[in-house]
């Protein structure tokens, strides 16, 4: 009997950790998050981080300026590898974005209150990742000023996009995803803008937040409709996020290249996206909670739960790798079999094994509670995952295209410095946007944190 009780207690331990540190009330939650924006002087670390991001952003500006002057010939792409860094980076970034939507939408629908303190910056991360992702198809056109040709519109050329092409589906999917992510994020910010408007002491922030708050006054009638709209947006975002990465995977799967033409691609890509995204959330959350002393809001329980999600989705991805290897053998198709042996032992074999190291071996320590409860260990694992998911796309895109059917048409892809600068540059863009967001907007949803404060839930008697 006693041992059974102990068992029950042991099982409950991870769930009994609070999602909000003790001793908080409405005022302290509001001040703890909102005043970072309004008052607190920003630590030196902010300037360092922003500075690094801004320098890398300038690298990006140089790389794309030269690209626009010279054309895509400055990149390493050529036949047979016509898609390389641009699509790798596109898929990598858009995948990172998906965890933000998952956290804010699916966890909201599942009533997981631990999402509250991480959903805002996860949504911001989504938005900025989609910005970085969206740049790649546009600059890959080589003539970005004509990128609007991607959309269907009655032009004087009487040309229309082909609705049977996954590349056109991709335009619809990514454009919708960017729009809905922006709306979701902005709607979540409206009540917090009102808080900042009411708390701002100087006139400029008061005016700016006043405009952004749209006249929000916390009316019960408004909250009623607001919550319904927010919940519906979450419900809409959930299938959307699945559809977006499925469509991205169809860019590959609908073609006939061995290594791309596989039905496992949509679910395997979606799992990979969530996995990569959680790694990026951890990459941002761990320094953030130290730098801004927000351990009460982003607690050890959050890190533990995110570690679990990362492990679970990582195992889905590993299942995808195993399926690819199995199917290439089971298909008894020469080209499929060759694709897999070439992927493992060919000229880019190093990338495959590095990917297995990052996405399979490096996540196994997450089975241990001690690893999931150590911020440093989680940060290191997350870094492996960030790298591993980039390598995954590199392996899929580059090794498949290098050696497809006819040996006379094979080739090897080497990136140029412009490829690398463009990629590193988008990391700069992302970092710059994240630091600006931390400086100028509340990184945690204040009004949702208030609902976690003791006393926010009605007492039983008052309900009836």
């Amino acid at each position, binding site marked *: 009997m006693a041992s059974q009780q102990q068992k029950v207690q042991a099982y409950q331990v991870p769930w009994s950790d609070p999602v909000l540190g003790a001793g908080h009330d409405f005022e302290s939650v509001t001040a703890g998050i909102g005043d970072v924006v309004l008052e607190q002087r920003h630590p030196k670390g902010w300037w360092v981080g922003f500075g690094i991001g801004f320098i890398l952003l300038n690298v990006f500006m140089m790389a794309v300026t030269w690209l626009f002057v010279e054309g895509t010939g400055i990149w390493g792409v050529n036949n047979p590898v016509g898609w390389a860094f641009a699509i790798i980076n596109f898929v990598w970034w858009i995948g990172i974005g998906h965890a933000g939507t998952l956290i804010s939408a699916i966890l909201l629908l599942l009533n997981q209150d631990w999402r509250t303190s991480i959903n805002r910056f996860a949504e911001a991360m989504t938005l900025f990742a989609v910005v970085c992702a969206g740049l790649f198809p546009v600059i890959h056109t080589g003539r970005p000023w004509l990128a609007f040709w991607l959309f269907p519109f009655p032009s004087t050329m009487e040309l229309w996009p082909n*609705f049977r092409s996954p590349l056109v589906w991709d335009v619809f999917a990514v454009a*919708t995803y960017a729009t809905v992510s922006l709306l979701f994020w902005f709607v979540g910010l409206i009540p917090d803008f009102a808080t900042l408007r*009411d708390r701002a002491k100087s006139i400029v922030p008061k005016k700016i937040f006043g405009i952004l708050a749209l006249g929000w006054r*916390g*009316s019960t009638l408004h909250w009623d409709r607001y919550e319904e*709209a927010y919940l519906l947006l979450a419900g809409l975002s959930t299938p959307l996020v699945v559809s977006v990465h499925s469509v991205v995977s169809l860019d590959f799967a609908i073609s006939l290249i061995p290594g791309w033409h596989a039905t496992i691609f949509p679910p395997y890509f979606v799992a990979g996206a969530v996995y990569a995204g959680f790694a990026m959330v951890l990459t941002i959350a761990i320094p953030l909670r130290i730098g801004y002393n927000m351990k009460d809001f982003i607690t050890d329980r959050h890190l533990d739960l995110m570690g679990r999600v990362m492990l679970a989705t990582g195992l889905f991805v590993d299942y995808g790798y195993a399926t690819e290897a199995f199917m290439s053998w089971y298909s008894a198709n020469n080209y499929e079999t060759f694709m897999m042996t070439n992927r493992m032992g060919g000229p880019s074999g190093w990338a495959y094994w590095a990917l297995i190291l990052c996405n399979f071996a490096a996540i196994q320590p997450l089975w241990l509670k001690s690893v999931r409860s150590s911020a440093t260990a989680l940060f290191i694992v997350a870094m492996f995952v960030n790298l591993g998911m980039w390598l995954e796309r590199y392996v899929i895109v580059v090794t498949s295209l290098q050696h497809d059917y006819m040996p006379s048409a094979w080739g090897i892809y080497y990136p140029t410095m412009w490829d690398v600068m463009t990629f590193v540059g988008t990391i700069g863009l992302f970092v710059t946007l994240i630091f600006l967001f931390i400086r100028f907007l509340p990184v945690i949803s204040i009004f949702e944190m208030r609902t976690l404060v003791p006393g926010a839930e009605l007492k039983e008697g008052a309900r009836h």
Partner: protein
Amino acid sequence: MHAATQSTFGVMAEFETPDQFVAALRKTRAAGYTKFDGYSPMPVHGASEAMGLPKNPVGLMVLIGGIVGGLSGFALATYVSVVAYPINIGGRPLFSWPAFIPPIFETTVLFAALTAVFGMLAINGLPLPYHPVWNVPGFARASTDRFFVCIEAADPKFEVASVKSFLSGLGPRSVSEVAA
């Protein structure tokens, strides 16, 4: 009292806890007032029920938005593929609707989401640059830690003195008249 009604938006009471707030809303409704509203720093569950709000129309609006979006996507893909730019690829049918499903799905979600956000703002009358409730001293805390109930002058039962004494009976921190 008529003069007061014209320059007054209503009478507002300030509460400290969600419990008092919801109880006040319920009692206000029970007392027969119809034009009143609560103001709180976060959604308080139970407040809508206490106020007796009817089911809001957001869900229906989003459903209609989604249906319109889906039909628009279908119409666009069909028009482009069949009428505007028919491409004969080995005699395959022009009206290849299964290939249109992904973009149709996306336009459905897009229209539904736009309806959810802009529809919600529209029926809430936002954006709104000015509202009388902001005239109440201390109302700024409605976005931090205070809860307010305002009975409006538009209420047929409204009469400043009686409303003030009614609200004072609910145990508020303070009661004040809201200038229009």
